[in-house]
Each structure stands twice: as C-alpha cells, then as structure tokens.
C-alpha cells in the first residue's frame, strides 16, 4: 500500500476525560484507503522533548465524512502536546502504516474483540468492518476504572459490549480474562490489543481453547516504515519488524 506524508486538518477535538481525547482529521482530497489495524506516525510540533514521531492506531475511518479518527491517551510530553491542538490546526502524518487484522480460513460465527485501555483504539475500526460484513462481534473492554472505558457507545453500534474494571466501578470487577462471558459463550476467533500482560493472558485463553487469535503489538518505534529495525519482536521467523510485518500478528507466530 502506498504510504503518504501529508498535512491533515483537524476537524474536531473531543476531550473524553482527563486522560483521553479523540482527534478527527480531514483533508480537501479524498483520504486514501486505510485498513483496520494500521497506524499513523504523527509529527508533534513545538514539543522540544519529542524528537521522533509518535505511532498512533487508526481508530476509525468515516469515508462518508472523509474523516480519520485517532484515540489518544496522554502519557507524556508528546501526547500532552497533541491534546492541546484545536480544530482548524493541521497535523502531519505518515500513513497508513503496517498490516491489518485478518480472518481465519474458516467463517467464524462468533468473534471476540478484547481491548484494554487505549488499546481498544484499532478494535473499533476492525469491529465496524466485521459488522459491515455480517459477522457477529462481542467487544470485551477493560480498564483500571470507569474513566478508562472509552467510546462504548461507538462500539455498541457494531456488536455486544461487555466491560470489566479492576476497581469494580463499572461492569464485572477484575481483568478482562476474568469476565464470565469467556465461560458462558463459545467464540471461534479472537482479536486483542492493549497492555502486554493483558494480551498475553488473552493469547493464553485462546491457545488453551484452540481459537484463532491475532494480537496488535505496540513496540516502540523510530521510523514506523521499516527503515530502522528498532521495533522488532521475536517470532518463529526470527526478528520481524512490528511496523511492517505487524503490528498485527497471529499468536502462533509470536515467541512470547
């Protein structure tokens, strides 16, 4: 897929709470095709301690409105600076980067998408695509507390949503992998993105139940397009770049 480096226009900034915000971007020309699981490398201006671009997942693409959404958590100087942008400002992106989620070689009847914290970002775009193709999706979303559960109304448009929080402030108390739905319902394909311990736990659940499972990794990156080899993960094929061969990997390939 062709990569672009472009200045996009911020059409809307939505502050979800203290920690999270959504940037909606648009352009005069039609946005290029993007795939669920792909990401963009964002240039952060006027943040002296932010030297490299910041990789951020494509949260959703609204082709009708020609809009690209990013869901971002403030964790440091770069994301803080991004949170201070306003509608009308422009943002420089290198995109779309990386591969995409894929379907198993059989037709899954019940698909589970498990997200933790800001890791839910790419699952919205993927869930929307799955739903548009007639698949049945269940979103299992977890967070430390209620304020870490994001965009629930958006997810509800594409399937059933169940949640967990570590402090019990919403949904079932505990980790996503503790949720009762994993015991009461049979799934045949699982996709997950979030903190590494969570993804490992989900991968273990999938492996135990012999389910097709893909995870989306968030290794630190310098370039995002295969030039530096900084972002590798160890796989059955040796060290592979998460930015070009991933970020989505089938769990059978990862040597965790």
């Amino acid at each position, binding site marked *: 897929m*062709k*990569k*672009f*480096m472009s200045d996009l226009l911020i059409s809307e900034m939505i502050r979800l709470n203290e920690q999270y915000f959504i940037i909606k971007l648009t352009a005069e020309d039609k946005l290029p095709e993007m795939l669920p699981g792909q990401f963009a490398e964002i*240039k952060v201006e006027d943040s002296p*301690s932010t*030297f*490299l*671009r910041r990789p951020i997942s494509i949260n959703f693409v609204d082709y009708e409105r020609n809009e690209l959404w990013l869901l971002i958590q403030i964790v440091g100087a770069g994301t803080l600076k991004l949170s201070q942008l306003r509608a009308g400002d422009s943002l420089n992106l*290198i995109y779309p980067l990386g591969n995409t989620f894929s379907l198993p070689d059989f037709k899954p009847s019940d698909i589970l998408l498990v997200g933790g914290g800001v890791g839910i970002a790419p699952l919205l775009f993927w869930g929307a695509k799955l739903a548009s193709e007639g698949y049945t999706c269940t979103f299992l979303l977890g967070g430390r507390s209620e304020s870490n559960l994001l965009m629930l109304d958006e997810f509800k448009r594409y399937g059933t949503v169940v949640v967990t929080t570590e402090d019990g402030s919403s949904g079932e108390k505990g980790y996503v992998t503790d949720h009762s739905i994993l015991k009461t319902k049979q799934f045949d394909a699982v996709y997950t993105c979030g903190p590494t311990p969570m993804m490992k736990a989900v991968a273990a659940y999938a492996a135990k139940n012999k389910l097709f499972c893909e995870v989306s990794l968030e*290794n*630190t*990156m*310098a*370039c*995002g*397009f*295969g*030039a*530096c*080899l*900084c*972002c*590798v*993960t*160890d796989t059955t094929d*040796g*060290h592979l770049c998460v930015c070009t061969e991933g970020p989505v990997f089938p769990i059978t390939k990862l040597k965790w």
Partner: protein
Amino acid sequence: MVDLRVNLGKIQLKNPVMTASGTFGYGTEYYDFFDVSRIGGIVVKGTTLRDRQGNAYPRMAETPSGMLNAVGLQNKGVEYFAENIYPTLLDLNTSIFVNISGSTVEEYVETAAIINELDHIPGIELNISCPNVKEGGMTFGTSCPSAAQAVKEVRRVYGKELMVKLSPNVTSISEIAKAVEGEGADSISLINTLLGMAIHAETRKPVLSTVTGGLSGPAVKPVALRMVWEVSKSVGIPVVGMGGIINATDAIEFLLAGATAIQIGTANFIDPTTPVKVLEGIEDYLLRHKMNSVSELIGALEV
C-alpha cells in the same frame, strides 16, 4: 545552473547528498516519499558475511534531540543481499554503497570480495565500528593497527571505491584517519554513532536490552562537525560528513568544515523527504551566494 557534482576518490557523485547506513533500509522503504534517484548516493544497511538476528528488543531509546539504537546489525547476510536485494536496486540511478561489517578481518574480506562482483555497486563503506572478536571484542576502529589491518586486507580484494567509516569513540580520530588513508582507503566517512546509554529511573532498569547503544541525531552534530573538520585537515582523501544533519544549513556547515559529501541518517525517520529538501537547499544556497559549483563550499570555512 550550479554544478553539484563531487569527486570521492574513484567515483563521482552527481550531488553531495547521500543517506546513511542503517537509516535508509535498501532505499525501497523510501520510494513512496521521493525519487531516490535524485540524490547523489545511498548507503544500504550494514551487511555481514552471515545472517544476523541483531540484538533483543528494546533496541531504541529517544533522547534529547536524538536517539540511541542497539539494532546490532540485523541483516540476512551478503549472499542473500547479492541474490535477492541487489537485483531490485538495478534500476536506481544513484551511486549505491554497501556498508560492510565483520567480527574478524577475514569476514570483512570475504564480504567485500562478494560485493566486488556486483557491477552496479560502485563502492563499499567499511564500518570499522565493530567489535573484533579475536582481539577480545575491542572495536577495530578504535586502534590504529587494527583499523589499518582491516583496511589493508580489504584493499587487496576490493578494487572499487573503498570508503572507510570511522567511529567517534576514540581519543584521536585524526590518527585513525591517517592510518586508514595509509592503507589505501579512497575516502573516509564519519561519524558513526557515539556510545551512550539511557536509564528508566522508575523501574531502575536500562532502556536498551544491551544497556549501551549508539547515539545519533542533532545531539551529536557539534561533535561530528569538529571531527570532520579535524580529519579533513589531516588527510588528503575526500571526507564524507554526517551526524545530526536535518536540513540544508546543517549540510552546508559540514561542507564548510571540509566534507566533500554528506550523509543523512536519523532525520530520515522524522521526515523521509529530508534528502531532497537538503539537496534543494544546497542549490538555493549556492545560487544565493552566487557560487557556480558546490566544490567552492568544500572546506571554505574562514577561521
């Protein structure tokens, strides 16, 4: 029209802008961003005799105005390069250099001999910033005798442009430069990354899997400029300067300090079109200063 051509010993580049090894992949990673054939040269990824998996993740740490890397020369080996990558580079209309690394002199020599057979590769860049396993892991490029020996042996089997890339992690870089010039290097490139480290205070752990790594980016530019200036005064062969170049002004500073050509590394990650922007900026500068040729800039520092 200004004349942008520069001579690097055995070959001429159509302009002084090159890309640095390990930051430009095999060039193909950049095709979507600009016409790679416009620039003077590209140096492809560090290549070794045999396949190398490189170091464990994490291999990168962002630092003030720069980054540390500990990639560890991950590559599929020179045979793979010759059979699978080289054919894809044949249509490029720019000078392609292969950056060669080894852990023994024999490995350097064997790798260079294989590259010598590839018609479309006019030169190699010998990376002597590698640990010499036979000498207890001491880096080839940090002592004059071992740097000289590596160059001497490679020179025997390699007839085309032999560019030797120096490590800045030395007491006197000019001495190393003179030693490699003495063994027949056609040109010298510098600097490779500066040894550094980063620590995660909260977890009390090093950021890199290897603890230490190589620093690059604007943070190293003043050191790089000083070294290019010193080396260009002490050798007669052309010098290729790099270290922290992000725009045309930086590039011109290196030319003034005595570099005949420059390489762009880390900046490619942030703006992959940096090489063409630098090229256009150099042209503008020459026009603005009513200079006819880029060679008028080389070493033109008024001290």
